[in-house]
């Protein structure tokens, strides 16, 4: 039996050996009149495995190669992606991108391009990651152990599912400003999901963990506590009543509770939102936009966190960006195009799903910083309200209105948690909600997630300590 899947090797590894070819393309683009040319190349290897009940029901490997070429002229840019990494294929893609901006590589002028700098190799120490990854039989055993534990801990379970996915990506970025960077990324995630059913009652609960740069992630997975947490939650929510709609205070738990900040505020602090004119905070640097209790950060540095990156998809080293300090807006999340079009300096946040997308300003690990209270103090401060222990997904619209679903909620009465409730949706507008985050607890934790936006689906981390929102609209029945 063959026990592992090896990544395909493209004819040449994506490394410094590409320098001459890439310099020729960049020089050609600049000679044709481009202000800046950027080439993003990738070689990726993905694997997904699904187990249902006590069987592995799907193993999905996939491989991809490709390049995205972006040409800037003034505030405009043209972007072309291709799967063809031959010299002719890349040249055709460059020509197409140039022609989008009215430029032509047959009419060459003087190239200001001075060549690429020596390669900034962020992949050091990562080249052996693929060999360290668990083999398929090891993955199967771990995930099947997860579904077996669900059976052991759960009651009334109609569906038990375990899943694993990993994404290995080798990238090379070269730009006519001299940028020449290489990296290897490794993202892995494990998930357990159940549907519990008893007559007319149903509940569905899922939890997913995710890491970056940890080949041993699956081996270190605490599958037992993961399964217990899912089953406990499903059991409680199975007979929960639907929440009664209304306006009320809410305490949001830590970890994935941070999705409220991600959706309500984080997206509005991306420079793409300034470009579109869809953020109310475009002219608010230095102004109070949130309660003074709120300090918020976006960074790519936390070791092993799902949204961490050594460099962004424009070749810039990741850094820490303080977005809000004591309620005052400090900085936007910016990429190359954001810097050109809005003047906000790049923050190492140019991210994309793959070579088929142009990079855009996107979040990495984004969280509200810890405060001084205990979670208990937050709950005790609420007379009648909602405790949101676990969040589902959410989104923000073009007018800044956000919403997200509550997967596991409890009514707070006189400072104590009472009955569980389901079906709640939290709704609001960032500008109105941020000043209402009046208390932050001291228990910051992060949680892995996926964020879909203009440059595709990317791995991110959301996070926060327990926070209290003084008043929020709760949609329900």
């Amino acid at each position, binding site marked *: 039996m063959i026990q592992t899947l090896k990544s395909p090797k493209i004819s040449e590894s994506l490394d410094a050996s590409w320098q001459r070819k890439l310099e020729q393309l960049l020089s050609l683009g600049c000679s044709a009149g481009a202000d800046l040319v950027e080439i993003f190349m990738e070689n990726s290897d993905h694997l997904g495995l699904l187990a249902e009940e006590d069987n592995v029901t799907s193993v999905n490997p996939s491989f991809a190669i490709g390049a995205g070429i972006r040409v800037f002229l003034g505030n405009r840019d043209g972007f072309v992606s291709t799967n063809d990494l031959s010299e002719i294929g890349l040249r055709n893609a460059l020509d197409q991108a140039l022609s989008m901006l009215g430029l032509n590589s047959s009419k060459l002028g003087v190239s200001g391009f001075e060549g690429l700098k020596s390669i900034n190799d962020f992949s050091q120490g990562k080249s052996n990651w693929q060999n360290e990854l668990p083999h398929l039989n090891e993955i199967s055993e771990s995930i099947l152990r997860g579904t077996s534990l669900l059976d052991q801990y759960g009651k009334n379970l109609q569906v038990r599912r375990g899943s694993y996915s990993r994404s290995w990506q080798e990238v090379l970025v070269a730009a006519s400003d001299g940028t020449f960077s290489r990296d290897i990324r490794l993202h892995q995630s494990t998930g357990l999901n159940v549907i519990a059913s008893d007559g007319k009652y149903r509940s569905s609960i899922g939890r997913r963990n995710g890491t970056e740069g940890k080949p041993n992630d699956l081996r270190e997975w605490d599958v037992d506590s993961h399964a217990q947490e899912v089953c406990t939650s499903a059991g409680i929510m199975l007979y929960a009543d639907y929440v009664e709609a209304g306006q009320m205070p809410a305490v949001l738990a830590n970890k994935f509770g941070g999705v409220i900040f991600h959706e309500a505020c984080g997206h509005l602090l991306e420079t793409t939102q300034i470009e579109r004119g869809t953020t109310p905070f475009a002219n608010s640097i230095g102004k109070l936009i949130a309660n003074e209790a709120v300090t918020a950060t976006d960074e790519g540095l936390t070791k092993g966190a799902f949204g961490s990156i050594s460099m962004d998809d424009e070749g810039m080293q990741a850094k820490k960006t303080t977005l809000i300090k004591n309620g005052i807006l400090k900085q936007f999340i910016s990429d190359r195009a954001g810097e050109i079009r809005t003047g906000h300096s790049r923050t190492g946040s140019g991210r994309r799903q793959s070579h088929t997308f142009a990079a855009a300003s996107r979040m990495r690990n984004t969280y509200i910083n810890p405060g001084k209270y205990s979670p208990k103090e937050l709950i005790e401060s609420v007379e009648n309200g909602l405790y949101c222990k676990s969040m589902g997904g959410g*989104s923000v619209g073009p007018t800044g209105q956000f919403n997200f679903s509550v997967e596991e909620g409890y009514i707070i009465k006189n400072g104590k948690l009472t009955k569980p409730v389901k079906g709640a949706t939290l709704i609001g507008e960032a500008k109105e909600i941020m000043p209402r985050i009046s208390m932050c607890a001291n228990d910051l934790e992060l949680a892995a997630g996926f964020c879909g936006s203009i440059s595709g689906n990317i791995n991110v981390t959301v996070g926060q300590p327990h926070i209290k929102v003084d008043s929020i609209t709760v949609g329900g*029945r």
Partner: protein
Amino acid sequence: MSRSNDSFLEENSALANLQCRLENLTSILNIRKWDLGAATSVDNSVQIDKGEAKQLKGSQRSSITVRVWNSDGVLGITSTTDLSDNGLRKALEGAQQASFFGNSKDIPNFSPLANSPLPNIKRDIKPLQGIAYLLTTLKDAESKLLSSHKSIESIPYNGLAESQISRVYINSEGCHRRIDRSQASLYLYARAEELNRKPRSSGAIRLALGSADLDIEGCIDEAANGTISHLNYESIETGKYLVCFTPEAFLELLGAFSSLFNARSIIDGLSLSNIHSLGKPIAVPFLNLNDNGLHPSNITSSTFDGEGTPTQNISLINGGILEGLIHSEATAKVFKTSPTGHAGLGAKVSVSPDWLEISKTNSCTSPNEHLNHKTTKDSYVLIEGLNALHAGVKASQGSFSLPFDGWLVKDGERVSIEAATIAGDILDVLTTIVQLEDDQIITHQGVSPHVWVDNLSITGEA
């Protein structure tokens, strides 16, 4: 299928001789049973911002998914974007390896209909107009929309795109399907703001076979009228309301709960329906529902699915009774029926609807024929569109809690609703529909009349 003279598809080298190349490679690798789905496309798209090109985008994409059955008859799969001989060989080898971890208890097979005649649909393949045309067209559209009302200050979400796509399905038993098609899309989403009032927005989308055929003026008018109609807004009191869903909104809601008639979801326990639900009432007796991927207005229609099964018009609900399900080869085997042309291609084959058609039965009338969104004097909430379905729908539980765009209508006068959510249970909705209007409206995602439901919970933002 007719072709344009300058179609890239005629010279599409990526798909040329694919069957021959595969037969050679599978022979070398001693693979006897295999199938493959491949697609290539050329795409152009533009976005603009106040008369300036914001992003111009082009792509040449190719991808294949290959499945092989090993000597024990177990299936493995691999996908890749490399259609070279080297890429195909790696994909086949990867699928071979994956087959040793395949599910021996549920093995998909070739569709028994993979060699059946395909439906004859008439779709011209329209030539790509190119980036310059797209840019000029979108600039004009933006300019007209911006000038349509003084409060419309930007079109933050806009895009004009065109594609030519080629897709094939091939298997080791001689099936070779291919479809070439083209499509184009335009979306305009306007944002308006008046002094001391909240920003409001609305949009419109149009699809066509080619970018030169798009109903651009219609898209501009719909986006402008929609946005202007939301400028005068008020909050709504939380409570229970008589609701009228526009065709677009009701198709969005029903589409989010398509697991109700999805055989794969039923087998996996993810659906509210079960294996015994067929033949039982699921909706009011005056409702019919079909899935008809062959509808003439379905721009993206294909003549076959991921397994090569011909696309068909399937009756799902007939007079309120659950009459049919959508199937792949594997699910059809379980239900002892035929595949319906709704399969993807995978180790575990997914099933999804194509184009939902909701209609009123001929024989049974609704109890509230007087309800019509154009004429009724009753007070009601008109829901134009639902938002954040990915977050607010619990398909396996049947519940939804969704933000929406809409109006409170009293005596025929519409006032936009500031911000609100609607919540309910899909089975309750289907069985408490009080009226399906007579006019069937074709939208970009299906066909439906306006649908009226009473006593739905709406939460307003106080």
